[in-house]
């Protein structure tokens, strides 16, 4: 019977079936950061356990790092304490740590692929829900909690039930001004924020096949926002070319042997899925969220919907969202005034994202009263962007150019919304309070759309600027 990538990778990594009915799955790569790992290390110490495969865990700091001045000790004593803890645990257990002076520090989901740690056909775990990102290279990548971080440290395994699989095919071609972010927001709008529960999403079809690796990373990143714990794209020439020469990718002849192996990991034609969903890529428009979950969105030229028109089960949720956002049903999303513009996060802070935003920002000025910042996803992204002069384009336009980190995506450092501020954001979550102010408001959109909003001072169709 024809198999899917999920079937093949799952089988190869199965250690045994557990009495509970779950599979004991070997984890190839474990990524950790400062927020969800300290308690796991403490559990390991208390239970007197060892880290079973220390060479398979890699650490960095991203969530709490300041992005303005990164001089140690950090001004924020709690952030400093968390960093000290992580450094100490990594030393104690022999774990490789990408520190601020390594040149490779950055958001954990940005550095995994760029280091070549993320590879096709492997299993990945990280104490972070956006681990789904890594599926873009054809890996099975699971976001886990702290107890499971402990499991992986102690055993290099997880107890998991095999998910069902839904293939999402995006047909046709995207039009100019429509980006990977719009595609995934359109998918979530269609299938809902809980539609993916229990599923792995396999993204396929001509639009996905034509995408660069960075665009695929954006799509897979937000699988979790659609309720799917993991999402992946079958590895192909784009994947192999992306990996060639990366520090942790196989080198020389081993690389060629690896490619031969990776080619065999694909979903075979004729494989069956638990569900198939087809979207027309050509009809996708730039998308903006109006609510408090990533499924509550409209096309940029549409009006905010009326809860009266909502499906019965969503009515109260829509009304709650509108009240929180202070939007009226029927109001156009275009023209919404913004206070802050944020280009960053593991969804959209890679080089191609910064290029797309810079294309819009070039020769223009951020509107008066708008606070705009660009936070590269990693030190490597920052360096590459600076080599192209992107930082100068941004700075001339009035954007602050920062150091790598999660920053305003979740407001755990000094970058936070204040009060009721409205933020045009290239991140992945518009949850209440997500950007550091309990009453702050987030509008999710593509990085180019954020740049356009920063310049106009309001939500605007980026295609008008690009023309």
């Amino acid at each position, binding site marked *: 019977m024809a198999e899917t990538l999920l079937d093949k990778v799952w089988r190869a990594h199965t250690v045994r079936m557990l009495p509970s009915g779950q599979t004991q799955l070997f984890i190839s790569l474990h990524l950790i950061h400062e927020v969800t790992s300290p308690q796991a290390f403490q559990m390991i110490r208390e239970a007197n356990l060892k880290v079973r495969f220390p060479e398979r865990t890699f650490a960095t700091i991203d969530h709490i790092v300041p992005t303005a001045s990164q001089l140690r000790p950090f001004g924020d004593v709690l952030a400093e304490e968390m960093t000290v803890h992580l450094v100490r645990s990594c030393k104690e257990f022999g774990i490789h740590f990408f520190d601020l002076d390594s040149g490779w520090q950055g958001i954990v989901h940005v550095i995994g692929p760029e280091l070549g740690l993320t590879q096709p056909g492997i299993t990945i775990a990280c104490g972070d829900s956006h681990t789904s990102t890594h599926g873009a290279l054809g890996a099975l990548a699971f976001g886990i909690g702290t107890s499971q971080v*402990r499991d992986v440290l102690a055993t290099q395994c997880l107890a998991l039930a095999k998910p069902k699989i839904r293939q999402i095919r995006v047909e046709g071609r995207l039009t100019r001004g429509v980006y990977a972010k719009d595609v995934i927001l359109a998918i979530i709008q269609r299938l809902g924020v809980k539609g993916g529960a229990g599923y792995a999403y396999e993204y396929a079809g001509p639009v996905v096949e034509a995408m660069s690796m960075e665009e695929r990373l954006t799509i897979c990143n937000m699988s979790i926002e659609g309720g799917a714990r993991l999402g992946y794209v079958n590895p192909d020439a784009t994947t192999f070319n992306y990996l060639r020469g990366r520090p942790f990718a196989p080198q020389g002849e081993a690389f060629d042997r690896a490619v031969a192996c990776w080619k065999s990991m694909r979903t075979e034609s004729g494989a069956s899925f638990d569900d198939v969903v087809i979207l027309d890529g050509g009809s996708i428009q730039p998308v903006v969220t109006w609510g408090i979950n990533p499924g509550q969105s409209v096309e940029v030229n549409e009006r905010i919907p009326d809860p009266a028109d909502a499906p019965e089960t969503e009515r109260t949720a829509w009304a709650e969202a509108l009240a929180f956002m202070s939007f009226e049903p029927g109001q156009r999303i275009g023209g919404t005034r913004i206070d802050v513009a944020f280009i960053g996060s593991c969804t959209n802070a890679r080089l191609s994202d910064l290029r797309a935003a810079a294309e819009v920002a070039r020769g223009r000025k951020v509107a008066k009263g708008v606070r705009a910042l660009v936070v590269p996803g990693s030190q490597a992204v920052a360096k590459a962007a600076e080599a192209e002069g992107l930082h100068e384009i941004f700075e001339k336009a009035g954007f602050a150019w920062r150091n790598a980190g999660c920053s305003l995506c979740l407001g755990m450092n000094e970058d936070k919304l204040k009060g009721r501020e409205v933020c045009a954001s290239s991140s992945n979550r518009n949850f209440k309070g997500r950007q550091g102010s309990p009453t702050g408001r987030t509008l999710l959109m593509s990085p180019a759309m954020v740049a356009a909003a920063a310049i106009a001072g309001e939500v605007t169709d980026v295609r008008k600027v690009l023309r």
Partner: protein
Amino acid sequence: MSHDAIRRQVVGRGIPLPGTDIDTDRIIPARFLKTVTFEGLEEHVFEDDRLQVPDHPFNHGLYRGATVLLVGQNFGCGSSREHAPEALRRWGIRGIVGESFGEIFFGNCTALGMPCLAVAAEDLEWLMKSTAQHPDREILVDVENREVRVAERIIPAMIPEDHRNQLLTGTWNATVVLLEAGEEIERVAKSLPYVTGY
């Protein structure tokens, strides 16, 4: 797996928390994650919601001491932070009954020995109403028989078989079980192409 780890049922008073898609950022806002332990998280559970909604159930003295949390659809979606179920557990919650749950949150709850059971929308509505009317009534969350019992009413409930097994056999701390595979873990590792260098 000690006998104490077995979770056949949870009995206690309920606390109804209406609303759908309540994410883990709302259960415990990110600023309280700046810590290297889980200690004291209970003080900040739903902090921002509680400030914005004065009659939030977690503000009511009425529900103090409740152990069964009643929630709507997709509860615990979003971030994988185990700080969320830890904050609830430390507040006093021992079991959750809802319409549906975020997948990672659900697994995190099991990993703490805290069962989450799903019930139908109508049953949940009734449960929430009846708990609001009779906050001192006990709710029995029965993992073994997959049901929720309140007064005379028996409500069918759902929990995936693997999680139910873990709770009933006291094996929800997966590390212990995974370690039992012993050298089999190394054997599988050695069969993988990237371990052998392709």
